[in-house]
């Protein structure tokens, strides 16, 4: 919800956020004065054409990039200022990411890909197996758990990526063009899974230009972005 109101359930707060890049000696303003508040359990769709700054905004929310100026707070914690080790820790606990190109390790199996985020957690193997299995079931890819990632279809790869994003039970799910490499049926299946996650109270941010996200069957906020600005 775009609002200046700050309440106890505020999950992501963005204030006066700017990101510029140097390119061939010129300053390119990718994000300009972004202000955005997202409360817990909200689903936000950042909609815009390629180059509108959606992915950069997601990277800043995840603490994968540092802003040029401005604040990004995750549950009040300024992720944009945290040293790398702390940002990684916060990301591992609170944020799950789903990418356009899935970013799976092709030579590993589905269950191994989903297990990887839990390896640094220090959990016992039995507990890790339980978490992996429930994430695979939630993403509806349990039946392929032993298959190599390289042998999966696009839709199956995306569901594996969803399971990987969910396995640490994060509060926030960030999706970067999640349906760009999926056909219509698989895209609709992905949206169904998002609906389930929304029902579980996860905070979801989707950066996309897919028209399927314009009229979702569950409560969501569409935020249009043009030339690095929210319009």
């Amino acid at each position, binding site marked *: 919800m775009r609002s200046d109101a700050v309440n106890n359930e505020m999950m992501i707060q963005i*204030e006066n956020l700017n990101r510029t890049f140097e390119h061939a000696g010129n300053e390119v303003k990718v994000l300009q004065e972004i202000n955005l508040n997202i409360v817990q359990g909200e689903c936000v769709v950042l909609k815009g054409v390629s180059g509108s700054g959606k992915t950069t905004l997601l990277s800043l929310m995840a603490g994968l990039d*540092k*802003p040029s*100026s401005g604040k990004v707070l995750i549950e009040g914690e300024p992720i*944009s200022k945290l*040293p790398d080790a702390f940002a990684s820790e916060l990301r591992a606990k609170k944020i799950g990411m789903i990418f356009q190109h899935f970013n799976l390790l092709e030579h590993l199996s589905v269950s191994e890909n989903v297990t990887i985020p839990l390896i640094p957690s220090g959990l016992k193997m039995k507990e890790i197996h339980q978490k992996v299995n429930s994430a695979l079931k939630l993403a509806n890819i349990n039946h392929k758990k032993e298959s190599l990632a390289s042998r999966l279809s696009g839709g199956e790869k995306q569901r594996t990526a969803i399971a990987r994003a969910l396995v640490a039970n994060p509060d926030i799910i960030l999706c970067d063009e999640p349906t760009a490499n999926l056909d219509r049926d698989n895209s609709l299946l992905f949206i169904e899974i998002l609906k389930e996650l929304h029902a579980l109270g996860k905070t979801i941010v989707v950066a996309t230009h897919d028209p399927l996200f314009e009229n979702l069957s569950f409560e969501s906020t569409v935020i249009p972005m043009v030339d690095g600005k929210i319009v």
Partner: protein
Amino acid sequence: MNEVLLSNQVIVYLLSESTLFFLLLVAFIVSLKVLLKWDFESFTPLQFTLEKQAYLVTAIILFVFSMKFLLILYFIFSIDALSLLVPGAMCGAGVIEANDYGSYLLILKLSILFFLTLWLYINRYDMRTKNHKWFKEKSWLFSFIFLLILVELGLDYSYFSNIDTHMPVSCCSALFGQLEGANPLPFGLSITLLLVLFYLLYALVIVTLKTKQTLLYILANILFVYIAYYAVVYFFGTYIYQLPTHKCPFCMLQVEYMYVGYLLWASLFIGTYIGLSDAISTLWLKQSHTRSQKSVTRLLSFFVLLCTTYVAVYYFKNGVLL
């Protein structure tokens, strides 16, 4: 140009030191700018730029400091190798004393290594905080270390360019041997008292470390390293060389003695530096002790044990002491 400056070891050493100094100079200039404008609570473009620069500076400093630890070993190896060029020198002791700069340079290098260890400790504390709480402290300490390294570089060039390869020098037998009627030991100690003090101070260091009496620990540690130096040169070293008149801190670094000097001096200085840095940073930053106590205990105990073993082995083999 003299032969010393043209020797392979010195060329490599001076080039390495100069390159590292150039890197540190860049880091120093940037860190001064960062230090003067640093405001972590700010979310301005300037502060974000400074944070990126601070990250770069820390990376440069960590790299250069790790190289400095390796370079002191190379420096010692180099001066030992130069003993072939300097008449009268049989080991690094003669080369170090070849001019007025050598001793100061060696003491400065050992001091710099201590401050580097202290900086590493403060940096470790700083990296554990979300808001770079100790950034200013470590930056000021770095500025101080940079000035020491600037002096060190000047002394490096002065030292190596002023070694006269035609002038005979005194080596360990004259430098560390008992001069007529003069007692070379500190505080007028006898060898027996020196050894009693050596073991007592070692015990005091371990006890104060375990009981966390930080101030007493710092004092005991400084005294221990001072006394340990004399104990090694004037007593334990003679058992390493198996010759009562051979009193030298350098010869034991040579192959004839299986390079045991490197092990001996490294365990003493690393143990002391880690312990002192932990204690001083604890007092300075008011932080709890790190988990380096075990390392300090192991290193200093290893040093004492190694020294003692040489005496014990000699005694068991020969039935007498030197």
